[in-house]
């Protein structure tokens, strides 16, 4: 600030600094960075999933690599403008931004959806989930709306302009589980299912392709929300501590972005199978990703408070006071090594370092450092990709198998759906136009079959079924080229 002092008098600089501080005081906080970490995690998950086979089964022979056109002109004006602006913000270096012709590969659309889930970034406020109580991001009782914004302003998380315009982030959000079902989320499960069905049922080939793109974007959006359940701050309601305490935002997420980028992220661990959609996030059996993350790792704002010590302070007392300061019951600490002074130690759980601490002589200071972040990332990232791939498979768990024999086509509900539903059959002509076969709508059960006559002049038959079982709603689809 030396030059500033030369330019202005002290009283001037005081007010000017307040003004500029208000303007510039946004913390450059980072959730799992969308353009690198979310993109890379989603790529790993997509690779590990069966999406390639599902797309091939739907007449997209190149599967993940199938070029698909979004046809924004088919959207209404507001939706088109908003989506175009968000797509234009994507970094071409990631490979998931569509070209000026609106074309990208099927797998790239999924990755784009994961990045768009946090574009604009305020959407990320809806990615929080405390698995213990199902709540999303909240900033404690007694403060709401403007009060949150004001508090955030002084924490460095917003600006005067944002405050006045009402666009300031208020430390409140829907829980991740509500958000993925929210009608206000254009990348949620309802949008995914609706468009997956429309990708089969719409008349024109362009419209069907555009619907498939919208479905893939929503698929990526849902995966991004789940991926954040593998970030301790997002499952420990820790916005303030993780993102606002230090100027650079979440040190853990910066560590991940810097060390892994997009392309060095590890492959998915074992694909996770769960009974329903919600249980991928959180469940009473403790096997949801949010449960696992919350109980095994600290976030930057939920570590034990520093404990003041004297020469005769016992280790057990330090441990007790540190435990008492914890907002969450797990992870916890049962013992500490405090000798010699000035040395740094780690608390290890299940083979990985989860907390660093040191005895400074006057206090025991707790913190997270790069060694902890390295162990967290090594453990969490493959697991996140495994959960995301599992969720993707779960959402696309049903399919319709269609076989031609003579003049009839047999349709069978295959995959992992436990319940059936009404199947709609469509006939496609040589120009790609589809119409629904009259009289279809028969109820098809898992393993059951429906037989339809092969219409004259048809090039393809396609079928779609919307159902619901204990695992949640699903769409099963299939198509066959007629000889």
């Amino acid at each position, binding site marked *: 600030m030396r030059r500033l002092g030369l330019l202005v008098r002290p009283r001037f600089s005081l007010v000017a600094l307040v003004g500029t501080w208000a303007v510039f005081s946004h*913390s450059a906080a*980072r959730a799992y960075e969308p353009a690198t970490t979310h993109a890379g995690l989603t790529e790993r998950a997509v690779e590990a999933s069966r999406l*390639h086979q599902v797309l091939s089964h739907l007449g997209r022979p190149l599967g993940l690599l199938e070029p698909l056109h979004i046809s924004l002109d088919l959207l209404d004006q507001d939706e088109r403008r908003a989506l175009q602006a968000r797509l234009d913000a994507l970094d071409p*270096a990631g490979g998931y931004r569509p070209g000026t012709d609106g074309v990208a590969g099927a797998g790239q659309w999924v990755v784009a959806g994961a990045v768009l889930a946090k*574009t604009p970034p305020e959407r990320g406020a809806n990615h929080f989930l405390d698995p213990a109580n199902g709540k999303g991001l909240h900033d404690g009782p007694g403060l709401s709306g403007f009060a949150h914004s004001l508090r955030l302003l002084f924490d460095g998380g917003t600006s005067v302009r944002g405050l006045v315009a009402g666009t300031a982030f208020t430390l409140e959000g829907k829980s991740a589980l509500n958000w993925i079902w929210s009608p206000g989320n254009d990348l949620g499960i309802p949008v995914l299912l609706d468009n997956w069905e429309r990708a089969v049922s719409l008349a024109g080939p362009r419209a069907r392709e555009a619907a498939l793109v919208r479905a893939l974007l929503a698929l990526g959006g849902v995966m991004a929300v789940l991926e954040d359940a593998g970030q301790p701050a997002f499952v420990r309601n820790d916005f303030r501590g993780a993102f606002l305490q230090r100027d650079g935002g979440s040190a853990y997420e910066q560590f991940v972005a810097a060390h*892994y980028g997009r392309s060095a992220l590890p492959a998915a661990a074992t694909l996770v199978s769960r009974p329903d959609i919600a249980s991928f996030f959180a469940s009473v059996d403790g096997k949801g990703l949010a449960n696992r993350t919350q109980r095994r790792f600290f976030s930057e704002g939920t570590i034990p408070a520093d404990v003041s010590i004297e020469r005769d302070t016992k280790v057990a007392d330090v441990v007790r006071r540190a435990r008492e300061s914890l907002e969450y019951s797990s992870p916890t600490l049962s013992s500490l090594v405090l000798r010699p002074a000035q040395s740094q130690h780690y608390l290890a759980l299940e083979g990985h370092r989860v907390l660093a601490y040191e005895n400074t002589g006057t206090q025991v200071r707790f913190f997270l450092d790069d060694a902890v972040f390295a162990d967290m990332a090594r453990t969490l990232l493959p697991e996140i990709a495994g959960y995301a791939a599992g969720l993707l498979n779960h959402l696309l768990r049903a399919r319709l198998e269609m076989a031609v024999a003579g003049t009839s086509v047999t349709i069978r509900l295959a995959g992992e759906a436990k319940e059936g539903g009404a199947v709609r059959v469509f006939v496609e002509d040589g120009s790609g136009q589809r119409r629904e076969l009259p009289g279809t709508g028969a109820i098809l059960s898992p393993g059951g079959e429906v037989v339809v006559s092969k219409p004259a002049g048809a090039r393809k038959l396609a079928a779609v079924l919307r159902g619901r079982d204990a695992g949640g709603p699903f769409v099963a689809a299939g198509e066959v080229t007629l000889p």
Partner: protein
Amino acid sequence: MLESAGDRCKAAYYPIEGERDVHSRDGHDTHPFIVQQLISTIPKSVKSAHGGFLSNLAVAVWLTALVPSCGPVVENAPFSARPDSLRSGDLLGPFDGMVVDDETDRPLAGAVVAGSWAFVRGIGLEGPAAALEAVTETGADGRYRLKIPADLPRGEGVRLRRFTLMVYRRGYVAWRSDGIFPTGEPRGDFAQQGNRVRLEKWQASMSHYRHLVFLGGGPAIRAAAAWEVQPAGLELDGASPTATSERPTETARVGSASALNISSLLSEDEVRGVTGYAGKFEVGKLADRATSDVYDSRHFKALDKPETYDVGLRVWAIGTEAAEAQFRKLIGDLPSAVATEEMGDASLRARGGDVTGFAFLLREKGVVMQLSCGLAQCPEPSMILRLAKLAESHLPEVKLPSPESTGLVPSSGSSLVPGGKP
């Protein structure tokens, strides 16, 4: 004093030379010099006012109003200004360097070089705000240069977070400034200026799918790498990278050392990958015409299956004029032949009995390729097209005759039957 909005913005987003080095690499201590720069943009009339609180308030309002109209804050670059310098580079650029072959150290012309600037914004949470891309191609000297982009995005809180350089040339491993293929581990040798991009030769054991994912890039890069989509798709279908890139050499039946050999154009695994056929093939030559310096064929004969499971491939490498004539002849000779524009400079589809055919012309190379596939093997029209694209993608691996040795007349006996019988 800077008066125009453009100048004010320039002052705001251009870092102060010399102070750059002291800033940490995480890029979040840029505020002090931004404040300094903004103070320098305050009109003298405001700065010299002696109105106490009101004038101070006016200054604060001026600063508040100024920022949204300015360009982005530029974070510190994670790369050096030059290869031999410890000074941090500038994310804005300009960027220049040379692309060379890693083995020979010789400059590589025709490499596609793309630079991408990624901007972020966010209050509390952060996400993409805007992106810019510039694309160029290396000249004969292998050099490239990317200027500082014009029309930088504006808006409150917009920050330039990242610059990524991508270089692609067919036959080589793609190069990115932020990582190394195939592990993606961070690259430490990228420099803003005087950068040297050493491209390694592509190895047959490498995965095209992993390569495409690693490569990323915008439309220009994707277009240059489009040929990799087919072999990458086969990998996803279960074929190994080796199967899609490297095939055993087949001995030419004609003893001439200069005989055309197309054995690398299509493999059994590639056919299976496209059609989903699980059975075995006996691979040989088609019987209708002998291999010569300008003609060769492959016959994938499905074992224990009728001819409707067979696949045939014929290639004429006969120079531009003769190739055009040969293509015209095929249109005239093959049953139900219809000209299409699906591949190459011209293409056709044909259908005779239970066999479908596809042929295309590569005028500049003087090559005509014709594929035949039984309908039991290729029930989908797209399958034969995929086979054709695969074959074309491997064409650079085939030694084609020199133009002087071609210029032949079109061959006779055009056949659609995979087995080659007229």
